[in-house]
């Protein structure tokens, strides 16, 4: 039946193309659908799944003890009332943003290289938002009352206060999660139909048959499908910008020195894309090696992702610079002290590690050799993920721990429950990703076929 094209030595230059054009529609479909239709996963992925289970084992007691004892088991207190929970929330939401950027904005910009990475980037978005959502839900202390955040008629006659960015955040993040799931599922329908048509096992076939809703590729269906897909991309594009802007406003609207800056919304959006693309690299580099996807996720992809990371890295650096400028230009002694305290106070190590991880090391991306070297990029992406986590740590902790009055200064130390919950969400994320790799096509089959068709027509 279908056969894969011959090896890379025979006229396929990875750096120059986004798809090996010697594929046929059948061979790409075979290659992608083989993974969910095979009963086993490669060992390294199973190992990641086991590690994820281990971390998930830490999540359970962290949540249970938190619910039994209350948020006092965390390191939060006066003056640092927002600790790991908000750091991790912003970190996860930011990671999610790359998925929407790739699937929506790059679609509108007609970037061909989005096609083979959009599916797992969107999957990553949904799971990252899932992890993010856990933190505010648990931080309210009584998560079973989280619905109090929504406007609904109740016997207490209480209503949300719509002038607060925290309520905007509730609306923005829940809208973002909903629209991301809709977009992701819409993209999956034709691919689920492919899996239904290829499954040999009866129950698997029925499962994919239900999920694909009876998609048959009718011309009438495609017509509406394409309109819906394009409009969803158009709707998601401003949505993703709004979500992280509102997350930025959570901080910027307050009067605490270090949070009281107008640059926060755009600088948060740039940081989100920076960390999200780093996570896309962290996931795609091992996946392309394990599944032999080098003909679909090429060095060209890695090069392009790296360029986006370099651009957003520079934007984030501009943000760091502007924070210093604002502190000086405002002539406010509190702002000035805040900046001094960040650099030379008790948390100096976090500021300088942040500059090292997010500012200095990513400058390697100026070199094409680095941008096309998967191994270096993989480690670089992890460094950036750590750097972006440190950025949120610096913003949250160093701003809160010393505000206006020295009498209300204090230190913040995370407890084992903080760490357990944080590492637990990483486990949850990895576990969900492994599960998705097992049951869903992690590269969009119909879009790759379409791209292949388009490229082959050109010759």
């Amino acid at each position, binding site marked *: 039946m279908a056969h894969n094209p011959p090896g890379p030595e025979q006229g396929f230059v990875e750096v120059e193309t986004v798809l090996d054009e010697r594929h046929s*529609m059948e061979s790409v479909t075979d290659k992608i659908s083989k993974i969910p239709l095979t009963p086993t996963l490669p060992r390294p992925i199973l190992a990641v799944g086991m590690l994820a289970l281990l971390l998930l084992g830490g999540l359970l007691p962290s949540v249970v003890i938190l619910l039994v004892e209350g948020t006092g088991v965390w390191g939060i207190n006066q003056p640092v009332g927002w600790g790991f929970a908000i750091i991790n929330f912003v970190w996860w939401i930011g990671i999610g943003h790359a998925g929407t950027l790739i699937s929506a904005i790059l679609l509108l910009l007609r970037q061909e290289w989005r096609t083979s990475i959009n599916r797992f980037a969107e999957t990553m978005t949904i799971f990252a938002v899932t992890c993010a959502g856990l933190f505010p839900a648990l931080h309210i202390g009584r998560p079973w009352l989280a619905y109090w955040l929504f406007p609904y008629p109740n016997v207490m006659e209480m209503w949300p206060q719509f002038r607060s960015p925290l309520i905007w955040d509730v609306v923005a993040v829940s809208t973002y999660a909903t*629209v991301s799931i809709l977009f992701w599922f819409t993209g999956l329908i034709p691919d689920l139909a*492919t899996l*239904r048509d290829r499954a040999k096992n009866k129950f698997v076939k029925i499962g994919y048959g239900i999920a694909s809703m009876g998609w048959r*590729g009718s011309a009438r269906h*495609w017509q509406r499908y*394409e309109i819906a897909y394009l409009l969803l991309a158009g709707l998601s594009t*401003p949505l993703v910008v709004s979500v992280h802007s509102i997350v930025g406003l959570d901080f910027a609207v307050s009067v605490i020195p270090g949070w009281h800056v107008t640059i926060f919304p755009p600088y948060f959006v740039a940081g989100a894309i920076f960390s999200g693309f780093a996570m896309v690299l962290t996931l795609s580099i091992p996946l392309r090696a394990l599944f032999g996807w080098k003909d679909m996720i090429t060095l060209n992809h890695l090069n392009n992702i790296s360029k986006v990371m370099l651009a957003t890295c520079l934007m984030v650096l501009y943000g760091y610079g502007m924070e210093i400028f604002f502190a000086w230009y405002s002539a406010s002694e509190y702002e000035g002290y805040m900046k001094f305290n960040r650099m030379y106070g008790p948390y100096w190590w976090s500021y300088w590690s942040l500059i090292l991880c997010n500012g200095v090391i990513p400058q390697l991306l100026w070199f094409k050799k680095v941008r096309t070297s998967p191994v270096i990029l993989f480690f670089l992406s992890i460094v950036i993920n750590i750097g972006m986590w440190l950025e949120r740590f610096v913003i949250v902790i160093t701003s809160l721990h010393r505000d206006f009055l020295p009498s209300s200064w204090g230190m913040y130390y995370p407890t084992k429950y903080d760490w357990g919950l944080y590492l637990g969400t990483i486990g949850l994320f990895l576990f969900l990703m492994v599960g998705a790799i097992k049951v869903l096509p992690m590269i969009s089959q119909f879009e790759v076929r379409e791209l292949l068709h388009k490229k082959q027509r050109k010759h």
Partner: protein
Amino acid sequence: MKETNNNSIYGVVAEFPDGESLLAAAHRVREAGYTATDAFSPIPVHGLTEALGIKPSKLAGLVLLGGIAGAFGGLGLQYAVSVEFYPHIVSGRPLFSWPSFVPVIFEATVLIAAFAAVFGMFILNRLPEPYHPVFNTPNFQKASTDGFFLSIEARDPKYDASAVRALLEKAGAVAVTEVGKHPDDPE
């Protein structure tokens, strides 16, 4: 091959080797005057809807309406809550402080428009529809990989099995089959 039990016949389905020949065949079928036609492909084939004479979809208008409904819904909700149900002064702003309502209005617009796009697409496409007679076509599982199919249904006023078959074969079909409405109907 005139059918006596015409009610159990869905129509004639032809398979084509690629999108271009499917498109060309669609033009010929429409010129021959058939209207109850459809095409099935693993990728969207551009120009196919025009070739088959399928009307432009109303979906985009529906999404616009959804967006407008979301915007006014979001504004109305915040007005009702902040002015009518629970009026209280926050940082000295008037009760109807509309600039601080903009973020939620925007989110509501996107949310309802996205619902309109996805669920509007499902409803107009009549999905989910797990069973459809065209699935009885031999080799139809290729329609989600690399098969291109064209159907002329029996409910077409001009339908005549042998004439349809001849037309499709002339248009370059690699296989033409008369398909029943039920899986066990004879071909």
